[in-house]
């Protein structure tokens, strides 16, 4: 790739902001700034940028819309959304439409931001653009388009999985489970976990290609599982039902979970099928070119998250084993329940082992 400093484009309608960014980044990067999105798109055509940093709130256009255009115009550029405004809707759209790399809040950290940009520059230069980004497998407009029957007609009626590919659905909502099964059709192997322990067990048994998850099962936060899993297994594509109202959770899911798509809970079946189908394709790309995975590298979730998840998984396992020992065990896994004198303990060990294998000690 190109030698020399990474080329960064900063866009914000507030001139002071771009000046500050310029001063902050000028030492390490070749910084271009503009205070209008229209101008930015022109600049984008003149230079090959590694990273584009955009403000979310700009007159006439949102950062999400602008980055969506950037994704089309310069697919190689990593996209970072800078915002002082935790607009949940904007955040969800930044994932679904712009596939942003990171979501950075104002005021930014002057140590972390250059580091993040440097990392993005490095990824941008070292990893190939995945095919989906070029052909726009799930274009932003398709999300609206999928709502119409006409769009559904052009889409595959069912999702087709290859050997070894599987879908794990983590949700305790029967309605969603039914909807997903209906949407994907009977032929698609969908494993289902209704609590953390089941999810860990299922992932330990066989890796999942796509994880479709709710934010919470019961009262337990599942997003930690997704974030930790992505850290170790970037090829697993995560799709999350966006019944969430907490902007921080969403931000963590973006930055630490690299969630592929958020599915609005009220989505039509066509949209769900479309998203799952494209998630499978994304998984294949990641599985086929391990170097591309770096583009979807996550921010470290932190040890605290891992510990708290481990605690919750254990509790979930205990509660589950206590409630119905052996209920979890599919035919192949029947053994581990019989072995232990104490079924719950045996199960717990099994799950803990799975947890360690999946997320480290």
């Amino acid at each position, binding site marked *: 790739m190109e030698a020399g400093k990474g080329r960064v484009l900063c866009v914000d309608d*507030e001139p002071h902001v771009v000046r500050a*960014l310029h001063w902050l980044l000028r030492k390490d990067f070749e910084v271009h700034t503009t205070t209008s999105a229209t101008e930015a798109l022109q600049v984008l055509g003149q230079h090959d940028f590694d990273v584009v940093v955009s403000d979310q709130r700009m007159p006439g256009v*949102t950062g999400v819309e602008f980055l969506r255009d950037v994704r089309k115009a310069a697919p190689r550029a990593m996209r970072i959304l800078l915002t*002082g405004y935790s607009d949940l809707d904007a955040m969800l759209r930044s994932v679904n439409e712009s596939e942003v790399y990171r979501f950075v809040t104002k005021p930014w950290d002057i140590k972390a931001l250059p580091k993040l940009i440097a990392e993005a520059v490095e990824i941008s230069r070292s990893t190939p653009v995945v095919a989906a980004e070029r052909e726009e497998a799930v274009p932003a407009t398709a999300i609206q388009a999928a709502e119409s029957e006409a769009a559904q007609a052009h889409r595959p009626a069912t999702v087709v999985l290859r050997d070894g590919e599987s879908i794990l659905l983590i949700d305790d909502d029967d309605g969603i489970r039914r909807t997903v099964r209906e949407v994907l059709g009977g032929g698609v192997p969908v494993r289902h976990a209704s609590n953390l322990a089941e999810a860990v067990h299922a992932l330990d048994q066989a890796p999942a290609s796509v994880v479709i998850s709710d934010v919470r099962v019961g009262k337990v936060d599942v997003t930690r599982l997704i974030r930790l899993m992505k850290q170790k297994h970037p090829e697993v594509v995560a799709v999350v039902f966006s019944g969430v109202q907490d902007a921080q959770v969403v931000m963590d899911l973006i930055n630490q979970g690299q969630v592929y798509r958020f599915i609005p809970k009220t989505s039509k079946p066509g949209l769900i099928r479309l998203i799952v189908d494209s998630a499978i394709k994304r998984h294949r790309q990641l599985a086929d070119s391990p170097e591309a995975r770096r583009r979807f590298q996550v921010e470290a979730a932190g040890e605290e998250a891992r510990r708290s998840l481990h605690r919750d998984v254990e509790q979930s396992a205990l509660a589950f084993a206590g409630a119905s020992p052996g209920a979890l065990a599919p035919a192949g896994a029947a053994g581990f329940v019989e072995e232990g004198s104490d079924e719950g303990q045996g199960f717990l060990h099994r799950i803990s082992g799975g947890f360690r294998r999946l997320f480290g000690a």
Partner: protein
Amino acid sequence: MRLPALAKREAAPDPSDAAVSKAHGPAGPVQFRLVRYFTVASLVAFAVVAAAFAWFEAKRSDFFRDVQEREGAFFNSTQDQFARRQEEAALRDLLAIHEAGNVNLTRLFANALWERDFAPFVARAASVPIDHCRAIADVVDAKGKTVAPPEKKACFAEAGQRIMALPGFREIDAKVVDSMKKTSVFKIKVFDLRGVTVYSSEHAQIGEDKLSNAGWKRALAGTPASELTHRDRFSAFEGVVENRDLISSYLPVLGPGTDRIVGVFEVYSDVTPFLAQIRGTSTQIKASAAANREKVARVSEENQSQVEASSRVQVGSLLAVLAVLFGVLFLIVRRADGIIAAQELDRDQAHQQLAQSEKMAALGQMVAGVAHQLNTPLGFSKSNVSLVMDQLDQLATPVKVATRISALVRQVPGDKIVLDVGRSRGAIEAIDAAPEDVAAMKEMLGDVLRGIDQMSELVVHMRDFTRLDRARVSEFDVNGGLKSVVYLAKSVIPNSIEVVEAYGPIRQIVCTPSQLNQIFLNLIINASQAIEDRGRITVATREEAGYVRVDVADTGTGIPPEIQERIFEPYFTTKPEGVGTGLGLNVARDIARAHGGDITVDSRPGHGATFTVVLPFEAGGETRAAA
């Protein structure tokens, strides 16, 4: 003048809510006092029912009395009639029997005396002239009755003297007295066909004229005529008798062996004992009738009093039933009233809570927007200050070197100074600061100052919006308030929406600025929500005949005519459940009205909507709301 009142109002704990509830008070309908209304209405109704019932009962009693009286009267009249008839019949019988007796007596008497004694005597008496007496005219006495004058009577009496003087009188008289002695016949008179009394056992009456006497006339025509008379004194054969009941019979005297009437007898017979007997019987019957009548009256009286007592009992029972009914209904109604009042209170509280939460939601949304808006100046200021601080570190060595050189220059005269950089070479060579760095730092810090200005501006607007440090009611520059509101609202509404401010020259108005700001924020945010993607909100002010007029126009979807009427109603919302309480515009209208103004909407679907707030110059707000 105004200040004390202001100070007082300021003391209100949460004035905007107070204003809202106050505004609700007079605006709502007059409270319906259920218990009072029920009590009055039902008591009147019950009184009418009771009165009607009592009236019917009284009518019934009267009717019964009437019937009883008529029955009693009928019974009495029957009894009286019966008694009377009985007496009449007894008297008639008595008369008939005595008349028949007298007729027979006359026959006997006539047969015994007439041919031999009376006939010649009567014939002789005929010679006594009476026509001259009759010729004397009658007179009308003081009572209007035609009577014979005294001279006429005297004339007849004189004729009687002449008759008594006729031969044979004494024998006849002796025979009559003799034959009638010890009988019930008290007197006998004989009249000739001229009507002259030719004989009377009472001699004084001889000569009297009977021509116009009805009894005489009838007897002369062949029919006996009798009548019952009562005489206090009566000259009988055997002297004067007193207090006797007599039957006088005028009887025709037939010539022996013929049907020819030859004279008329008048016989007085005594029926006192018979009559006494009849009267005794009659009295008994009457007494019995009276007793019966009394009995009937008593029974009737008893019946009446029973009926009236029963009436009273019925009226009393009805009153008791009505009283119980009223009591029960009163309890139910009072309970219902209590429940309704409690529900009303609950609703009011819920309404106020919702209004409060609506206000808090709007404020919260604004605060969030403002907080995030602060992040922009905060972001670049913090970044710049941190950078400058880092760079200042790099300036430490150059400044140290420069300071040293400066000191040397001061110590050493002349133009040339030799520096020994032995130990400091490394440090001096490492200097990586360009003169433009200082300029850049100055620029960065200049930006920080501007950032601080932006933040100050935001704070000023927030203070202008809440006005917590100002009098609640005060002179207020609506344009200034709108500027703050628009500034703050811009932090909440999407950037794709352009906000145009077109303020006209308007005077300051006396009002409650914080409440008006609340309305303006509400209207502007509503306008932004009506715009689906891109659009424009125009906030304009102008003066209009005693009013300040604020228009908030949007280019949004507009409001369908059918719901334009309803958007100011409480709890009416077109937002999804859980998003809006439906109180925003309702509260806005309450506030506008409390200021003596109003809020209206003009909208065509597809062409946006314009909300117009009009406020009088002396709006006051709470002043009016409290009045």
